[in-house]
C-alpha cells in the first residue's frame, strides 16, 4: 500500500516535471508597441491592441512559432502613446533602448507611424505595422518598415472605376461623370483625395467640387448645398468617423440625391446603427470584410476569424469586427511567418525574410514592395444594402450587385 502511494507520487512528480518542461520548451519572442490607449485615437488603438493580442493567443494555441526545432511564443510590451506623435517616438526609443525590444508592431494611424518610423529605422529594428496607410510613409526609403494594409490613395479610387462602369452601362461617356470631393485636411484623407483625383483624371472626368473639411467638423451643410446645385454623379467624403456621421446625417436631412456616394469609416462611425435607412446604398471602403474568401491555416477563413474574435472579445458581439483589428492580427501573423522562414532570431535575417514575404492570410494576400507597402491586396468597396454591408467591388470578390443609382 505504501509502495503504491510512493509510486503514485513519483508518477505525479514526473508528470508535473514533464508538463513544466514542455512549457519551458517554448521560448519567448518579445515584440514592442506604442499604441494609443488614451487620447483621440483611443477607440481605434484599443481595436488594434485587441487584434494583436488575439493573434498572439491564436498562434500560441497553434503551437507557437517554430524556429530550428525550438518553439517560441510572442509576448507584446505595450506603452500608451496618448495619441501624441512625440510621445510615440519617445516610447519607441524606450522600448528599444531600455526594454531591449528587437521587433516592433506599429502604432495606430499614419501620423503616429510617421513619428515612430524614424526611430525604428535609426536602430534598424524591423517594424510591421497595420494601421498607417498614408503613402507618404513609403517614399522615405525606409528599409525596416512593412505595412500589411493597402495604402490610403487606394481607399476610394475604385469608386471612380465603378462610376465609369455605370456611366458606360447607361450608354454615356465615362468622361461625362461629374465628381464632388470633400475630404479632411489631414495626411490620410488628402491621400484618399489624390487617389480619387488621379483616377478621375485618367477617365477625363470633371471634378466640380473639391473641398477640405475642418478637423472639428460637425456641420457640412455648406458643401451639401453646393452638391445640390452642382448635381455631381459621384460624391466622395473622407473625414474619419466625424465625416461619416455628419455626412450621412445631413445627406438624409437635406435629401441629397447623388447617384453614387462613397465614404470612409462607415463601420467605425456605425452609420447603419445611428441613421438606419438613411445610410442605405452608400458605398464604404474597407481594408477587409468577413465575407471575403481569403483563408490561412492559423485563423481559418475571414468568416472564421470574425466568429472566433467575437467569442474571445464579447464586447464586439453586436458590432462589426473593425478591419483595424483584422489587420493588426495579420501583422502578428506576418511576423510568425517571417521568423519561421528566417529560422533565426537575428533581426537582419528577419528583415530580409519580411521583405521576401509572400503570404496568403485570412486578411488577404500579403506581399511587400521595395518600399514596404503591401501591393498584393486590393481595397474593397461595400455598399450598405438594407442595413447590411455587402461587398460590391472589386467584382472578383463581390458577393452582391451594386444598387445604382442611389435613391
Amino acid at each position, binding site marked *: 500500500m505504501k509502495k503504491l502511494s510512493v509510486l503514485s507520487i513519483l508518477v505525479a512528480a514526473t508528470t508535473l516535471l514533464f508538463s513544466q518542461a514542455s512549457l519551458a520548451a517554448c521560448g519567448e519572442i518579445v515584440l514592442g508597441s506604442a499604441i494609443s490607449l*488614451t*487620447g*483621440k*485615437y*483611443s*477607440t481605434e488603438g484599443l481595436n488594434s491592441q485587441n487584434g494583436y493580442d488575439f493573434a498572439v493567443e491564436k498562434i500560441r494555441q497553434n503551437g507557437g512559432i517554430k524556429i530550428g526545432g525550438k518553439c517560441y511564443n510572442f509576448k507584446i510590451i505595450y506603452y500608451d502613446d496618448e495619441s501624441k506623435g512625440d510621445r510615440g517616438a519617445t516610447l519607441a526609443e524606450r522600448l528599444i533602448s531600455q526594454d531591449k525590444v528587437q521587433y516592433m508592431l506599429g502604432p495606430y494611424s499614419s501620423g503616429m507611424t510617421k513619428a515612430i518610423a524614424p526611430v525604428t529605422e535609426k536602430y534598424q529594428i524591423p517594424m510591421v505595422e497595420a494601421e498607417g496607410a498614408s503613402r507618404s510613409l513609403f517614399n522615405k526609403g525606409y528599409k525596416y518598415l512593412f505595412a500589411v494594409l493597402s495604402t490610403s490613395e487606394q481607399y476610394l479610387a475604385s469608386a471612380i472605376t465603378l462610376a465609369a462602369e455605370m456611366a458606360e452601362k447607361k450608354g454615356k461617356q465615362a468622361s461625362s461623370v461629374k465628381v464632388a470631393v*470633400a475630404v479632411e*485636411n489631414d495626411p490620410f484623407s488628402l491621400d484618399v483625395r489624390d487617389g480619387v483625383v488621379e483616377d478621375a483624371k485618367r477617365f477625363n472626368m470633371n471634378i466640380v467640387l*473639391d*473641398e*477640405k*473639411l*475642418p478637423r*472639428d*467638423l*460637425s*456641420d*457640412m*451643410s*455648406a*458643401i451639401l*448645398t*453646393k452638391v*445640390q*446645385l*452642382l448635381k455631381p454623379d459621384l460624391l466622395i467624403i473622407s473625414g474619419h*468617423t*466625424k465625416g461619416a*456621421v*455628419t455626412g450621412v*446625417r445631413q445627406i*438624409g*436631412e*437635406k*435629401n441629397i440625391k447623388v447617384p453614387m456616394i462613397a465614404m470612409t469609416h462607415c463601420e*467605425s*462611425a456605425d452609420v447603419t446603427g*445611428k*441613421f*438606419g435607412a438613411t445610410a442605405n446604398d452608400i458605398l464604404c471602403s474597407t481594408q477587409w470584410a468577413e465575407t471575403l474568401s481569403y483563408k490561412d491555416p492559423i485563423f481559418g477563413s475571414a468568416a472564421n476569424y470574425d466568429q472566433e474574435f467575437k467569442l474571445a472579445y464579447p464586447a464586439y458581439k453586436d458590432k462589426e469586427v473593425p478591419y483595424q483589428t483584422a489587420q493588426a492580427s495579420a501583422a502578428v501573423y506576418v511576423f510568425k511567418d517571417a521568423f519561421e522562414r528566417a529560422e533565426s532570431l537575428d533581426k537582419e535575417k528577419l528583415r530580409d525574410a519580411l521583405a521576401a514575404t509572400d503570404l496568403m492570410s485570412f486578411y488577404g494576400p500579403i506581399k511587400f514592395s521595395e518600399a514596404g507597402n503591401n501591393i498584393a491586396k486590393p481595397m474593397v468597396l461595400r455598399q450598405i444594402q438594407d442595413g447590411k454591408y455587402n461587398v460590391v467591388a472589386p467584382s472578383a470578390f463581390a458577393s452582391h450587385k451594386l444598387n445604382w443609382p442611389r435613391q
Partner: protein
Amino acid sequence: MDQVLSNISLLIEFPIVNLKIILDGLMIGSLFALAAYGLALVWGVMNVKNLAQGDFVISGGYVSWWLAQHGMPALLGVPIAFAVMWGVGWVAYKLVIRRVIERDLFTSLLATFGLAIMMAQLLNLMFSSDTRSIDLGFDTLYFADGLIDVPIAKLIGVLMAAGLAAAVIVFMKSSRMGQAIRATAQDARAARVMGIDTEKVYAFTFSLNSGICGAAGAIIVMVWLVQPFYGIAYSIRAFVIVTAAGLGNLPGVIAAGLGIGALEQYGAHIFGISYQQAIAVILLLLVLLFRLIQQRRNRQVLK
C-alpha cells in the same frame, strides 16, 4: 480663386440659396448664442474668462446621449443635462473657480484651461473618442424644390434654445437672485455692503452658466454631434461673440451669435468649409480693431 468665383456665381444664379444659408446659420448661431450668454454672465459677474465653456457644452451633450442610450426620450435630455451640468458647475466652482476670482487674468485663464483639458480627457476615458449623436427620427420640412430644408429636430432645438434664453432673461430681470447677480456685476463691494452674499451669487452664476451650456450641448447632440475634443470650437465662438457684443448686453450677445452663425455659413460657402472657423476669428479681429479705433477717439480705457 476659381472656386471662390464659381461659389459666388452660384449665389447669384440661385438666389434662394442665400435664404437657405442664412437659415442654416441662424440655427447654429442660436446655440452659439446660448453658450456665449453663459460666458458673458460669468465674465461680467465674476470677471472669470472661462476657457472650459465649450467643454461644459460637450459634457451636456454626453449627459443627454448617455440618457438616450439608457432609454430616456432624447428631448427630456435637455432639462436633465441642464440640472446635471448645474451640479457639475457647482462642484467646479467650489473646487477651482472660487480660488481664482480675485486673482489676475492669467490665473483664471490658466485654471479654466486646465479644467478644459481635464474635462475633455475625462469624457474621452468615459465615452471613448467616437463621435456621438442622437437621431430623433423626425422628418424634414422642404421648401423651394427641396433646396431649403428645415429638419424638425433642428427646429425643436432652436425653439428650446430660445425658450431657455427667454427664461434666463426673465429670471435675471425679475427674480431676487437675478437682481443680486446684476448688483454684484455692477459693483461687488457695494453689493456686499448692501448685504448680498456675493460668494453665493458667484456659485449660483457659475452653476447657471454651466447649466445653460449643458442644455445647449444636449440640443447640439440631437442636431449635430459631439466628440470629447470639440469643446474648443464652442469656446472660441463664445469668446468671439462676447467680445463682439460686449458684456452685459444680452440682446447684443444674441444678435452677435446669430450673426456669426450666418456669416460663418456664408464664409464656408464662398471660401470652403475649412475656413469656417477662421472666419469667426477674423471677425473677432475686425471687431477688436473697430473697438480700438472707436475707443481711441473717445479716450476711454479698454476694460
